[in-house]
């Protein structure tokens, strides 16, 4: 048994590395399914991270921090929605601006909190279950957010596939003119989807500042928002593949770090490229099936909707 005990810390780090990606990507998936392309994920994650940390460190409550992170992300997304859905600004440009804004704004707020430390979120501890070797700490020893990330993936998958609301959401992303003609409130539905995406990005940020590294550092997302965006495409807008992709990404990231730690004779820059290279390869392989993409990609993605009156 002792021989494979080493696997527990590795998998634990993979989980912590992957969870923020899962949150941000599943949120963006819902946003994109409604036909809105929000490239501001990175910015929303950062603002979520700093808000969560600020609230958690001043109130001492991790739960309040989580709520604050999600709310801050949703608020950022609401700004994006107002600009692109109400004022019909270009979604790509506005999304890029939102990221740049988020980087600067989070640094401004966060400057007062640099160097603070907080207690990380408590891990689940079920007497008996959590003590089972290997399986115990992996399945029953995580923090609340890890379980929430899995639950949200399953919930989103179920919602999109089986519920009427999910069908309406897909319809709006598929053809906003048709949805409008049938009588659905395209703009309202897109606001909701965009704000859900923002809240999930905020949660992803909160996970970084409350669990992954329980502290605030400027630009601490270091590109995870962009990876989340890529993951949505990589997963061809399907939640099941998305979680697979997030864990593949997290897994390769951790493995190459460990490999570097072992002193393999491979330039570290090459190793750092691995997760990205792997994603590109998989993306190319997946894009070969045009029918699947046609069925899953929202046809109205990033197109502005102007209802006729």
């Amino acid at each position: 048994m002792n021989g494979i005990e080493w696997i527990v810390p590795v998998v634990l780090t993979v989980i912590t590395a992957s969870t923020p990606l899962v949150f941000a990507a599943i949120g963006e998936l819902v946003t994109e399914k409604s036909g809105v392309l929000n490239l501001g994920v990175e910015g929303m994650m950062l603002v979520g991270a700093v808000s969560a940390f600020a609230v958690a460190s001043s109130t001492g409550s991790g739960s309040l921090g989580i709520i604050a992170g999600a709310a801050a992300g949703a608020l950022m997304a609401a700004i994006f929605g107002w600009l692109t859905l109400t004022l019909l600004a270009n979604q790509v440009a506005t999304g890029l601006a939102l990221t740049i804004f988020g980087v600067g704004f989070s640094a401004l707020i966060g400057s007062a909190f640099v160097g603070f430390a907080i207690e990380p979120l408590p891990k689940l501890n079920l007497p008996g279950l959590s003590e089972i070797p290997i399986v115990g700490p992996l399945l029953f020893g995580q923090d609340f957010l890890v379980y929430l990330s899995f639950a949200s993936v399953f919930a989103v998958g179920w919602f999109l596939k089986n519920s009427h609301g999910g069908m309406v959401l897909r319809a709006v992303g598929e053809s906003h003119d048709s949805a409008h003609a049938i009588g659905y409130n395209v703009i309202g539905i897109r606001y909701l989807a965009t704000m859900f995406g923002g809240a999930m990005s905020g949660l992803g940020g909160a996970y970084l500042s409350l669990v992954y590294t329980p502290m605030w550092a400027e630009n601490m997302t270091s590109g995870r928002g962009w990876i989340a965006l890529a993951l949505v495409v990589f997963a061809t807008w399907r939640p099941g593949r998305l979680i697979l992709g997030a864990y593949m990404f997290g897994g390769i990231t951790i493995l190459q770090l460990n490999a570097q730690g072992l002193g393999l004779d491979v330039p570290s820059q090459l190793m750092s490229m691995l997760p990205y290279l792997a994603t590109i390869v998989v993306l190319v392989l997946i894009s070969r099936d045009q029918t699947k993409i046609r069925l899953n990609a929202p046809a109205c993605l990033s197109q502005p909707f102007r209802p006729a009156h």
Partner: protein
Amino acid sequence: MQSEENTQSKRVEKPLLSLKGITKAFPGTLANDDVGFDIGHGEIHALLGENGAGKSTLVKIIYGVLKADAGEVLWDGEAMTVAGPAAARQRGIGMVFQHFSLFEAMTVQENIGLAVTDEKDRKVLRQRIIDVSTGYGLPLDPDRHVHTMSVGERQRIEIVRCLLANPKLLILDEPTSVLTPQEVARLFETLNKLSSEGCAILYISHKLHEVQELCEHATILRGGRVVGECNPKVETPRSMAELMIGDKLTPPERNKPDLTDAPTRLEVSNLSLASDNPFGVDLDKVSFAVKGGEILGVAGIAGSGQVELMAALAGETIIADFDDCVRIDGQGVASHGPGKRRRLGAVFVPEERNGHGAVPGMSLADNAFLTAFRRMNLVKNGLIQSDPTEAFATDIIQSFDVRTTGHAAEAGSLSGGNLQKFIVGREVRQEPGVMAINQPTWGVDAGAAAAIHQQLIDLSARGAAVLVISQDLDEIFAVCDHICVMAEGHLSDVRPIGDVTVEEIGILMGGLHDQTVTPEIQQAEA
């Protein structure tokens, strides 16, 4: 107008729907100008008018998609404000759109479910779709994705979607364009049944003999204004068409060509092709030949392989190893793309105008350039010759009576009929030797359709071979010399148009969908 008394009897004191002074302006045009008429309970009321006459705007106002600038809508005698289509459906107004409001990546059941607001109905939706669709002769598989379906099949979804809601007023915009005569007859039975049950029907169509057969009252719009009302039963299609266009209508004229010495210009032999679309139709040993000066019509209901045949003719689908199964002026081209075929003098007009026949977001001049640059020499040293291109587009606009602001107008801004006139004009102006055209007048009004038909006839008289693929039998009988029928990827024998009746062709077209006739047809073919 002579019919006022006729219809008065059927309209009890209170009409179901009453429009008064409806006015709606768009930038640059007055789409509806003081429009008013009544529809009684259970009345089948036709709304006639050319493209751009304001019919679509008016029905969108009734259905709540658009808001009128002025005027009022009375529903059962009470002023009605329709907040949106959902509210309209709640009141019992159903609508079948001309440009379908369907979601391509979703299944039939999902598309229909989106319009069903009641949770209880959704649970039994699947069975109801099957019941209603087969009951009304519009069979649908609830699990098929819309993007794999033909235009005709898509229209079935729209109709079934409305029928499921048990409407009091059903608005149908060009519902029969893609149905066989038998299917039309069955649809009319359905509509008459609905009408006898008290459901009023507002019927928009360009097929005037259908209006005559079905409707008891017609309102005619021209330029956004009501220019007349009539009882179609006592009018002739021609008199109604002339009311619509406000002018004398010239039906297409043609002299029977002598084809004995004419060369074969388009020849397809033993063309078999497996569709790459899982729901597509495989072509099975399709053979035919079209001589110079001949117009061959291919009849058939939507989704019988016409799209696949057109793709194989135009070079959008390439058959690598059998160059000779498609021959243009004797030269095998099946392994070559559209460019080579166009250089040999063939031109193609696909079924879908926006996005296939023309790029909606580009100007008419750019669209003219896209297919004509080779034959009209619009490129010099790799550069676009803008003056000749614009002159070419302007020439098409003028010679083919395309109503638009000029060659700089976006293709997507033109109405269906005008864009089709432009596309046909663009191809005809290149003086092709072979022309293949799919659904030449789908959704096009009578005036524009007559103009397009005349162009095709004149082109063939100049020695070109013309292939017309159409679901509109009237059209085939009006312009073609020979006819064949496509059903499930098979092509029937070619027969002279004078030797067959509409009924015979209709049975061949619809045979496979009409269980009672199928065995006979198969025996006849065997």
